């Protein structure tokens, strides 16, 4: 859905999304990195299972909810990427207690 501008000189940061390696940049939020990854990163809602992607990118809509390093329901648009971060896409109600 999104592509990176060429003049971006920020340092690469490696993360995994559903086990696949994705190169993000330092300063990206998780949600931005997902949108730029080219992967299918649609979550499924907890109510009907409808597919969603981030909508507001400023912390208000909660459509970017994602599991980060095993902790679910994080707002991907507020969390910066870190080297080695493991991202899982939430399909429906988030499992607890893993």
């Amino acid at each position, binding site marked *: *859905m*999104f592509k990176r501008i060429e003049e971006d*000189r920020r340092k690469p940061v490696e993360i995994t999304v559903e086990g696949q390696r994705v190169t993000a940049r330092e300063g990206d939020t998780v949600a931005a990195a997902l949108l730029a990854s080219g992967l299918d990163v*649609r979550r499924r809602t907890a109510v009907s299972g409808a597919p969603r992607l981030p909508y507001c990118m*400023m912390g*208000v809509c*909660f459509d970017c909810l994602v599991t980060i390093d095993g*902790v679910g329901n994080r707002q991907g*648009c507020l969390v910066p990427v870190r080297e080695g971060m493991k991202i899982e896409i939430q399909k429906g109600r988030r499992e607890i207690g893993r």
Partner: protein
Amino acid sequence: MTPARDEYDVAVIGAGPAGLAAAALTAKAGLSTLLLDENQGPGGQVWRAITTTPVQDKTLLGKDYWAGKELVEDLRKSGAEILQGATVWSLDRNLEIGISVGGGACLIKAKRVIIATGALERPFPIPGWTLPGVMTAGAAQTVLKSSGLLPEGRTVIAGQGPLLWLLSAQILRMGGKIDLVLDTTDKRNYRRALPHAAAFITSPYFLKGLAMMREVRRKTRVVSGVTSLVASGEGHVESLSFEAKGKKTTVPVDVLLLHQGVVPNVNLAMSAGVKHHWDDIQLCWAPELDGKAETSVPGVHIAGDGAGIGGALAAVARGRVVARAAIDALKPDAGASLPSAADLKTAVAKAEKGRLFLDLLFRPTKQFRIPSDDTIVCRCEEVTAQDIRDSVAVGATGPNQLKAYRRAGMGPCQGRLCGLTVTELMAEARSKTPEEIGYYRLRAPVKPIMLSELARLPKTDEATKAVVR
């Protein structure tokens, strides 16, 4: 990563234009000041990622963006304690503030609280607005500023208001492609706004705005007078149907960016018990404030767009007025070396010049505020306009009663994306005013916190003492 102390003279919530200006001034006056902000860096939404943006060519994001740099530098020199990545999830009448930062939570107190949580984009509930690929224009601008991302594929921007044109101009300047801009501004609004044009023409926004619109029209196709929008697709937005001057058109689309202005972000203030009223021009809730921007909760002030939409320049000026009020209350001697309250208020009036013209011109039309049929209103709980009308028919009288019928507003966003729609929709269905219908009763935590964070909440001094005794 936690606040250095348990109690501050002033806590400022939000590091956008208002918060930056306010915190810098109170800190310079010698008041212990804590600035709390949810993002990774200062700037709020207008100056998003100003210290880290990969878009370094200054002409691309424009002068108004880079103007924020000075305020950030001012703040850093001021001595204020700055906590980024800090989510404020609670504020109450005792001026106790619940903060979540770096996976841990804590409670602090302040003698004065300045809420500078700004604005959010007005809900734009058209059919298909929950489809992947549909985002707000603000969202696209956020990733553009903070990560240098440009929309890819067939891109349509629809709606109205200054941000729509600014975003279009920025994307085009950066080599991005926009297939179509759909302007939903109601033609009749021009007539309503015209009597107030004189003030706007002399405001700093006028010439810049005109130039930007010309720039966009030169580079991409613009359709004005759009009266309906319907997005559709299976699992992702695929097409957009729109109507303009009675003519229906359908275009293929991969990215649809929506925007119809911004409204105050009221959640924290309302949950603290701050009284709000319905603003019938800006079509939103606005806090009741006195001359020092103090709310109905003593000691809590609101600055910036959260006090009613005024834009970035007004936010800076309002932030200083509020800071001055806090200084006068807590350390009156320090006020002598600062600009006078009167001068600061004059600056606000100057910055707000022309606002009424913009408000009237970009007042969104009813069909884009109050949807019909099966259009989703509450995105979290997936409640449609028809569901709400049905609930009204069987006895739901207001947003809080509606919760019992349909759970609208009870999801994680706490009504941020449906609250205004629900109020206006129920008002229409019950032939009442929005003021009579009211709003969701908002509750802390205004942002979700993890049970583990609450379980590990550090004991307050008082609690520790109680145990020791």
